């Protein structure tokens, strides 16, 4: 009884103070959308109903343990049924459940039924990164775990602890930081179309109260209307293989004006990339860009030095050497066995990374140009 009381009072105090919540991360976030606040309210309502039922049931139990014990000289009664009592404790829970089901149904219908969206973002899960496409704006990009986070993961390398702390002090978050943020305008209803390119992923941003499975071959939808400007972080929430813990999500909710600027920038960059893909690159340029892309996309399985690990070695591989790049292109573009497809990368990027694989690590394969990728697709 005493322990229970202490527990409840500690819990109550902690949940009651918003500051404590933020600091210790004890409770669900209230989020920045109307839906996320509704969900938080539902969560707290059911929580308190459980606390009250718990106090009554455990109260009776611990009172009996204390008062009706043999060592206190208590003699056992012999009753063993009571239709009335049993009727009450079957009926009362039903009433409580109905009372909880009504607001829960309302919120659920709000979440699932969307009349009209202001804009659409298509989200595609890949092992192990997210791809974002804005079909109406003609923008698309890949979002990977940031290099700073990757460098701080392995404690078998020296200085990782310090790197993690430095990352958090810099205002970014260890393991919850990415190279390209998803940028969305505030006070705008955004429809998310969510799918996957390989296994099932789940796109989850707690502050937006969006968590939806990304199923290969099917498109799910979800929506959010954020009311506060800020940066919100989330993670993949469905086991999707080796790097499941390392494909975070970062969403920047920005003002309408900032969003318009960002869209213009992205469209400019997309035009430049298309231009680059139509040109012939020098080997040095391909190698320079290829190294960056290799370390982001490939080194997790094939290792930084190409020696192989979870994936086969690239150093000295017959596919990466020699003049015929056909099979190499095919594997990187379409995937093979455990190797995911990388067809979402642009032609210039694919040419760069494949050239890097063929020329680095003392390999002597041929250089691949963006035009080779275009014809290999």
């Amino acid at each position: 009884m005493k322990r229970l009381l202490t527990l409840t009072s500690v819990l109550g105090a902690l949940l009651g103070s918003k500051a404590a919540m933020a600091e210790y991360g004890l409770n669900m976030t209230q989020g920045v959308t109307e839906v996320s606040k509704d969900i938080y309210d539902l969560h707290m309502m059911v929580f308190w109903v459980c606390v009250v039922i718990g106090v009554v049931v455990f109260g009776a139990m611990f009172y009996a343990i204390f008062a009706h014990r043999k060592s206190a000289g208590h003699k056992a009664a012999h009753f063993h049924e009571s239709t009335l009592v049993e009727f009450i404790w079957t009926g009362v829970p039903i009433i409580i459940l109905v009372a909880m089901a009504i607001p829960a149904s309302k919120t659920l219908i709000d979440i699932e039924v969307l009349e009209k969206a202001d804009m659409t973002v298509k989200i595609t899960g890949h092992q192990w990164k997210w791809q974002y496409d804005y079909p109406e704006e003609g923008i698309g990009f890949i979002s990977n775990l940031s290099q700073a986070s990757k460098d701080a993961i392995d404690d078998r390398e020296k200085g990782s602890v310090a790197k993690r702390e430095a990352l958090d002090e810099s205002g970014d978050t260890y393991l919850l930081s990415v190279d390209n943020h998803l940028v969305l305008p505030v006070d705008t209803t955004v429809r998310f179309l969510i799918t996957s390119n390989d296994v099932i992923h789940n796109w989850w941003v707690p502050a937006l109260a969006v968590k939806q499975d990304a199923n290969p071959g099917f498109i799910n939808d979800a929506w959010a209307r954020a009311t506060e400007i800020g940066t919100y972080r989330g993670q993949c929430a469905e086991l999707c293989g080796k790097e499941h813990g390392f494909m975070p999500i970062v969403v920047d909710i920005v003002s309408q004006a900032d969003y318009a600027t960002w869209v213009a920038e992205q469209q400019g960059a997309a035009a430049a990339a298309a231009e680059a893909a139509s040109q012939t690159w020098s080997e040095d340029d391909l190698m320079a860009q290829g190294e960056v892309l290799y370390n982001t996309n490939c080194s997790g399985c094939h290792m930084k030095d190409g020696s192989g690990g979870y994936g086969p070695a690239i150093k000295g591989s017959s596919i990466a050497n020699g003049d015929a790049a056909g099979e190499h292109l095919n594997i990187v573009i379409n995937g093979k066995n455990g190797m995911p497809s990388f067809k979402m990368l642009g032609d210039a990027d694919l040419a760069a990374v494949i050239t890097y694989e063929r020329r680095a690590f003392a390999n002597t394969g041929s250089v691949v140009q963006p035009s080779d990728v275009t014809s290999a697709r």
Partner: protein
Amino acid sequence: MSTYTAAHDDHHGPEKGLLRWVKTTNHKDIGSLYMWFAFTMLLVGGAFAMGIRAELLQPGLQLMDPQFFNQLTTMHGLIMVFGAIMPAFVGLGNWLIPMMVGAPDMALPRMNNWSFWILPFAGGILLSTFFMDGGAPAFGWTFYAPLSTTFAPDSTDFFIFAVHLLGFSSIMGAINIIATVLNMRAPEMKLMDMPLFVWTWLITSFLLIGAMPVLAGAVTMMLTDRNFGTAFFDATGGGDPVMFQHIFWFFGHPEVYIMILPAFGVVSHIIPTFARKPLFGYSSMVYATASIAFLSYIVWAHHMFLTGMPVAGELYFMYATMLIAVPTGVKVFNWVATMWKGSMTFETPMLWALSFVFLFTIGGFSGLMLGIAPADIQYHDTYFVVAHFHYVLVTGALWSIIAATFYWLPKWTGKMYNEKLAKFHFWWAMVSVNVLFFPQHFLGLAGMPRRIPDYSLQFADFNFISSIGAFSFGLSFILLTYIVIDCIRNGKQAEARPWDSAKGLEWTLPSPAPYHSFNTPPSRAVILEESQHS
């Protein structure tokens, strides 16, 4: 564990030596085999959990690469569910059901032998995958396609074979229990005279027969998808990965109750004994068990609220799920009413049973919260879920198995265990299991997904606490092993009825129980005297 008593039985005793255990058709021998196998698997699955918690002790990767971490979480779940909890309950059923229904043995003794001896081979195949090229299965114990089909290691085919074998074993065990309860019951014992452990196991057997073939179907479809060019779960061939989840959870949700209904039975024996008062609401306990079993078949998709179900489906599965709280509540209320105005003492089995009621109910509360579909958006696949199912499976199912072991150990071995040491062990386990699992509620609510080998720094404190609790909880099983072995070797002689107000036909037999339980069925008078509703 069971020693042959020549005084009682004289025409055919057990063989000598190792062959006794290989060839035995005796329900007590087979019950002991099941229990020791389950305990071994508990230690193996527990060792995997120690590995998981050691990696999660602090942020960053220290001990293993993420793929091996995934192998550990997968194998931990599979070994604990199919290797530890389920066999332990079959072991309890084997040992206790013939004694409780006044029968000499199980109805199908040779099949009984087979259903046990499949297990070590299935377990061995499952564990051998660690040493195969590409490693053990790493797709979680729920093995969602296509991660478990197109993207899985080669060892997955061995996993499929092992699951088939485990399914055979479970189905045979269930058939045997049904046949024993319905055919071997003392002629004078009516169904509503049966003790609750027998009732809960009878109902569980029907769940097993209904659910395990569905699991077999799921893994067979995986097998053909992987090897024979079918596309049940592959959208590129017209299949549907979400269909895998429907099939899996159509097995998986009854499976959850397969692991908890016999626990309800155990606790319904222990609480009346130590409260010295008949079980409150015997018949409502039976009806509540049957209702939970029925509901377990129609709520499966509450595991799938985020797969893209239509809103009408979500509403239905939310309502059906919430309904389970009613019969489950009835059970908890009945246990508390049994304690009410009793004359309670707190021997070790009672401590475990009371702790079960307290902690299982906490798991029930988080279950109710998870059933609220909109809130599940934030809970789903986080540590909140991990905390929830460990409260119902560790401090629920496992707790009841430990409670049952202490309660019936005198009957099985004819010896008393060391009460002082056993109580100390209880408090050790009780404190550490809460240090282990309670903070995981906070981690989940704060946004930590499950099945990740590394986490951001905000989750560091609670993970550290949880891991410390885990190491302490793990160590406590060394003491449990010692207590049980010490009881078998050095325990004081136990009386036929070591607990003064225990009811049940098993207590009318001497301790240790004779090799063949009842050679002549007990009379109506004895059955009524020993029934739970007298």
